[in-house]
């Protein structure tokens, strides 16, 4: 229990957010939206990690979340650079059009 809230509720909330992110990755075709849904899934996992860190009164979990944020930031920087390069070359970022790596 964290402030009278069961850890099960946090598990459910994180699972819902993660599943919404997963649906977004499957359903959407815009590659930027797919990136954003991956960010949503990362955030869901971070939320759960903080909840468990608090319930164990162990700071390491929150340090891991901090590292996750750094990795997410670098992933987004490189990913968006790749996307803008792809857009410059083939004028689309539709994920179905990107299935061919050549032309």
């Amino acid at each position, binding site marked *: 229990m964290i402030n009278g809230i069961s850890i099960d509720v946090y598990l459910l909330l994180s699972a819902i957010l993660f599943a919404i992110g997963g649906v977004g990755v499957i359903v959407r075709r815009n590659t930027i*939206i797919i990136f954003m849904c991956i*960010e949503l899934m990362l955030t869901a996992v971070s939320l759960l990690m*903080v909840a468990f860190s608090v319930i164990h009164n162990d700071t*390491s979990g929150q340090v891991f979340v901090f590292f996750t944020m750094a990795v997410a930031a670098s992933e987004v920087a490189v990913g968006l650079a790749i996307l803008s390069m792809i857009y410059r070359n083939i004028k689309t970022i539709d994920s179905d059009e990107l299935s061919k790596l050549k032309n």
Partner: protein
Amino acid sequence: MLGYTITQWLFGILSFLAVMFALLVVISRNPIHSVLYLVLTFFCVAGHYLLMNAQFLAIVHIAVYAGAIMVLFLFVIMLLNLNEQGEPRRNVLSRVIGTVAGGLLLLVFVGVLKGTEQLQTLSVANSEAGLIKNLGHVLFGEFLFPFEIVSILLLAALVGAIMLGKKNEKEDVTQNQA
């Protein structure tokens, strides 16, 4: 108030808003609206961090995600000039299949994770773990080496992004000749 404490009310409201905004990220057709809804979702998650007394992470979450990453997304979307006409939608069948797959994923998570409470008998009222003093001690003590590695990772990502974003000069020359 109906037997719930103020913290539980705040938790309920924040959870509801987070899930609603997350759904709107997936549903909305305009990419810019998606970005703005994702920013709101991140604010709700930061509120959750504050409820768990993880003050440092709440501030860093807003600064890094809402402040830096989402601005980068917005910047690229505006640079590429995307709008709702730009994206062809998947057909109904694959959208339904995708949603069902996500629902099944959620079902598996709930089935696996249900009953974790029994493993824990701890009850935390006000955790000290998220205060910046304790976090700093752990970050610059036990996790000093990973911290330095992350700085190298960020530098590599920075250089990589610049290299990828740079225009290819050879291509420009051939385009000018043609």
